[in-house]
């Protein structure tokens, strides 16, 4: 036994460090996920102790529901708009703050500030901002004599998604900015010094030095922001409740409605399983793409 321990001491120590974390993940993440998978094949209503297994009925029901196409469209819209816009804005802000340096701390605090609020609070703030009767946007437009420009930003199918995206970007840009700043701080300054001696412009430096050297941070941010937007719930729920109709409904909101308003836990779990598969597929696809890009730069 002693001999075995002496030979495997480092493995045992490693396992001892990892096991508590694995136990937490197993009990609080994997087990509930597996149970969710199980319930996705039942007609459990969330209250009754009894339920029946209904095969793939819940999956069929969810996929054939009138809102499913809209959910897919909303998901693609958020990924297509939110992920690039958020990353471009946060990266440019990071580069500017890193270059300017003066008052950098203050800028970081201001931009990061929304991130310390609860998403619910942010939702309420933006709900007031967008209110077409007494919100600040409406008041400013009224003062400018452009009262007719004030819209029900959250109540129209054409404006709700961009309006919601703006509030999400406002909330989260600080977080991604910090990761980009972290990435920028790892770039050796002498590279920039050599480049400036060569006489390259600010844009050339951005294009040929900063972007390639930030590729790890870009990968992390794109993947994390894609997962974040695919599973987002709090802010859209408070801001729009998924409306008008299904126009801003995310998959997570739809899961909530199935589970707790419509009392169809089975359908909710089925959609949760679908969301997990979609998120996994998109994440793996992005990782593959970005890893190839990173390898090309290296």
């Amino acid at each position, binding site marked *: 036994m002693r001999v075995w321990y002496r030979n495997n001491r480092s493995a045992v120590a490693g396992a001892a460090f990892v096991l508590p974390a694995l136990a937490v993940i197993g009990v609080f993440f994997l087990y509930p*996920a597996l149970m969710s998978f199980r319930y996705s094949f039942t007609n459990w209503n969330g209250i009754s102790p009894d339920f029946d297994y209904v095969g793939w009925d819940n999956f069929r029901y969810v996929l054939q529901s009138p809102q499913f196409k809209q959910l897919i469209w909303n998901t693609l819209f958020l990924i297509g708009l939110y992920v690039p816009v958020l990353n471009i804005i946060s990266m440019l802000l990071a580069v500017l703050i890193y270059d300017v340096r003066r008052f950098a701390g203050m800028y970081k605090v201001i931009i990061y500030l929304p991130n310390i609020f609860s998403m619910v609070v942010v939702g309420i703030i933006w709900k007031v901002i967008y209110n*077409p009767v007494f919100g600040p946007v409406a008041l400013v437009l009224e003062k400018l004599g452009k009262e007719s420009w004030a819209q029900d930003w959250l*109540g129209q199918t054409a404006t709700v998604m961009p309006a919601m995206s703006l509030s999400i970007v406002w909330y989260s840009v600080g977080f991604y900015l910090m990761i980009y700043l972290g990435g920028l701080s790892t770039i050796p300054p002498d590279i920039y010094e050599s480049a400036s001696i060569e006489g390259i412009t600010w844009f050339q430096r951005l294009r040929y030095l900063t972007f390639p050297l930030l590729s790890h941070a870009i990968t992390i941010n794109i993947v994390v922001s894609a997962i974040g937007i695919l*599973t987002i719930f709090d802010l859209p729920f408070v801001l*729009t409740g998924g409306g008008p109709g299904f*126009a801003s409904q995310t998959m997570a909101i739809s899961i909530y409605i199935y589970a707790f308003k*419509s009392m169809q*836990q089975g359908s909710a*779990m089925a959609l949760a399983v679908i969301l*997990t598969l979609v998120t996994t597929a998109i994440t793996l696809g992005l990782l593959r793409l970005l890893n190839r890009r990173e390898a090309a730069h290296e």
Partner: protein
Amino acid sequence: MVSVKKACSAALALSLLAVPLYGCGNDNGGGTAASNTKNDAGKGTSGNAGTNAPANAPADTSADEKVTLTVSMMSSDWVDAAQEIVDQFMAKYPNIKVDFSQVPNDTNAEYLQPKAAANSLPDFMTIDGGTFGAQLADTGLIADLKDSEAGKNTIDGLKPVFTSSSGKLFGIAGGLSTTLIYYNKKLFDQAGIKELPKNWDEFLAACEQLKSRDITPLIVAGADGTVNNTVWSNGFSNNIVGKDPDALKKLADGTFDFNTPAYADIYAKFKTLYDKGYLIKGVTSLQYSQANDEFLQGKAAMSFSGIWLAGTMMAAGFGTGVMLPPWNDKGQDLVPVVATETGFAVAEGKHKDAAMKFLDFIVEGDGYYIYQNKRGNIPMIKSPDAGKLKIDPAISSYVDDLKTYAKSGPLWFEVLPSEVQASLVQTFQRVLTGELTPEGAAKFTQDTYLQAVKK
């Protein structure tokens, strides 16, 4: 090596992505002190979600025993009164400590459902009449109040929607409820409206008169259950219940047909108000509290709401009047909504005795008058102390008027299956935004109803 790395990444990603599922997984796995309680739901069982009804759990009976009573109430409209009730109750029963949680409006069932699944309902809670509470009662999670003092003293007409299919009285209504339109007397005077509209055509004419004076005619919160309480419930009462005496029976039997012109007209009326510019800007995304604020700030002449807000609305400085929502066509008798307010329920469990004391306190004791005085609503008990009640004379007169109508209709949550309830607000929004025609909305509601019946 690369494939191992990829596999690890995939495994890690899957672990992280399990988060959204985690929030939805409800399985308490049994094993509670009361887990041996038998449930007699009587359905064919292929599995068990682990909810164990503590119906036979021992109740606390000792007057000196220290008890912490968990209380949840949907009391956003009467938050100060709720706290005062809790404080006075604790002063009266020093051995009972109340752990009070306030539940936001319109989220009571969402708040209670996971707790029911986890067998951890609050000892005392607010609850609406209708299917959700009935299921909790039939599962043995909440107490049958039929033989309680509060149950005996409640007006009989308010009991049916709080009675489950197995005959359990699962809640005591918080009052008699009805929907009404509050109007700003000052703005009505400005627009020269002397007589209140008595039918739909007259109502449209009044709206036009207000609009022609640059006054926004009507506020309705279109982003939450308020639109169901008001536009749907009044439309259903006048268009359906008023014309088909068996409508509610058919609805319960699963044989009702939503896909009819009469039902589509419920959506069409709201669309008409929207298209003619009679609704306040932003109605599609407007929520209950914002709508109330906007009316109190004088942003519109009328607010379509309910008697539950009488205490707040009648106190407005501009002078508030009330009128029956004239959702009836010309020549048709008006069918008002007469229903129940959100009520009170007691969980089965070891604190049932203490919770029953709280129920008596809030339904019949001093707590009731704190609650009623804040809300200004109509009592649900048979013989309240008239000297302690606080009801605005306009509301009293309104309720007297209600008694003169031969027929009345229900509130939406009392009669609709949860699947239809869950989709109603979105359906109204889709009609307003033009995504669905009223006829299309009626068909969509019928499809949802049929799915619910099938399930």
